């Protein structure tokens, strides 16, 4: 009878690991955003805090946010205003639960896996609408409206892109999908170039998924809801202090969560040539996820913001039909080959 047989010990361990890893990686991503954006603009970026490379800058910023006064505007709807950041953070953390770091290191391997992740992630839309409405400011309201329209529009391509993977793998379990990619038969038919662990046939799905993820995270080029030139900060305008930090943390943890899910669905998860998945799995998965996070940051600093109607037509006229075609082709090839 080892200690690991106790349900509560295991639960506490899983919770501890999840919280620590998520916070640590979120800080790393924040730092990467500061540094990468600086170098892309030919600046040095944070330089002095902590000595070398300004590594302590994120801690300084986090402490600064925590010290600030937690304001609630007079015209705000108090309970809803105060609850919204927590709902946002909750939705993000609920998604992280199912990401498999290695064949054994997974908080819960649900049979529904990815379906659960999509369902839990969809709750964050409510949080944004809550924040936009309850702030009692027209900038927030317009930002919330834009965010609502955007998140509804891009949820569809997101789900459609995932359906292709599920058809190909024949399961919705995250571990199952990863293992299916380890087998040579996963990529569409045995024809074509064999690409073990990488984009096994679902290149179209991968592109749709990443575009939809960028829109779901409300990042450039899809950041109309918080467009600072027109809407101050959109639904974040009235937030300050710890509640603003929660939204910020939610965004960076969301980047990590969605990148990790993309890595599991399309890039072979914890598998890599020549590395034992049991031991190196967590590092491989985090590495792949951080690579995708880097691509997201890269997009942010090299693309202009889309216009509202361009955003909607991209989703409904291009991504949704493309996603449907991808499903049809995948299903046909699955049966034929």
């Amino acid at each position, binding site marked *: 009878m080892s200690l690991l047989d106790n349900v509560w010990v295991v639960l506490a361990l899983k919770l501890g690991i999840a919280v620590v890893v998520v916070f640590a990686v979120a800080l790393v991503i924040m730092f990467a955003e500061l540094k990468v954006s600086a170098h892309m603009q030919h600046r040095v970026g944070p330089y002095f805090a902590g000595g070398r490379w300004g590594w302590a800058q994120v801690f300084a910023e986090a402490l600064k946010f925590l010290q600030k006064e937690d304001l609630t505007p007079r*015209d705000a*709807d108090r309970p*809803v205003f105060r609850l919204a950041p927590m709902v946002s953070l909750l939705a993000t953390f609920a998604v992280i639960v199912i990401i498999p770091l290695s064949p054994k290191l997974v908080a819960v391997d*649900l*049979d*529904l896996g990815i*379906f*659960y992740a*999509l*369902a*839990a992630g*969809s*709750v964050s*839309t*409510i949080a944004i*609408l*809550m924040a*936009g*409405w*309850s702030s*009692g400011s027209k900038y927030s*309201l317009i930002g*919330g*409206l834009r965010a*609502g*329209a955007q*998140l*509804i529009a891009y*949820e569809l391509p997101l789900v459609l892109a995932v359906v292709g993977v599920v058809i190909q793998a024949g399961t*919705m379990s995250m571990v199952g999908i990863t293992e299916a990619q380890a087998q040579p038969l996963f990529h569409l038919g045995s024809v074509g170039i064999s690409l073990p662990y990488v984009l096994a046939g679902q290149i179209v799905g991968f592109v749709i998924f990443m575009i939809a993820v960028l829109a779901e995270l409300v990042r450039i080029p899809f950041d109309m809801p918080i467009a600072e030139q027109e809407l101050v900060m959109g639904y974040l305008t009235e937030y300050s202090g710890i509640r603003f930090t929660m939204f910020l943390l939610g965004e960076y943890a969301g980047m990590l969560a969605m990148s990790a899910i993309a890595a599991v669905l399309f890039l072979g998860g914890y598998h890599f040539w020549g590395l034992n998945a049991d031991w190196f799995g967590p590092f491989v998965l985090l590495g792949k996820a951080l690579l995708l996070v880097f691509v997201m940051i890269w997009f942010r600093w090299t693309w202009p913001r889309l216009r509202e109607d361009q955003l909607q037509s991209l989703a409904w006229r291009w991504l949704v039909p493309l996603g449907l075609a991808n499903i049809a082709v995948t299903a046909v090839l699955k049966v034929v080959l």
Partner: protein
Amino acid sequence: MSLGDWIGQSENLVFLAVGVVMLAAGFWVVTSRNLVHAVLMLVVALAGSAALFLLLGAEFVAWTVVLVYIGAVVVLFLFGLMITRAPLRRDPLPLDHRRRWPAALVAVAVFATLAYATTAFFGWEQGEAVERSLTGDLGELLFRRFVIPFEAVSFVLLAALIGGIVLARKDPRE
């Protein structure tokens, strides 16, 4: 089974807690004077129904409730509210209706019909406990045994969708 035995089982306690929360949230939905608060309480009630499905071992149905009802239907409610009138604090217009008693009557009648139909079909005896249902089994059932009802329902939904578009769209010649 006595009440003591019933309370003694942890699932029943969870069921009781979820039921109480759902009832309170539902009551709030119909009595709140603030439309947005009513919609947010509807989220709590729907989450409670998802929890009930989880208790029954129907994971797929539970997460579908979250994805479709909380993630899409309620978002559309909120969206519609904000685009038309976003009442902060008290709603200036009374949230009441002349025909509230007929509406209550219809609600009670629907509840009675559903409750009677369910109990008449399944009876009061304890059925055999179902383990967690797997999604694959659900798919087999839906697309083999119940494929005709499934297609019929999707046809009705499609008709409703087209009807909605026809109603909402103005004839360009007018």
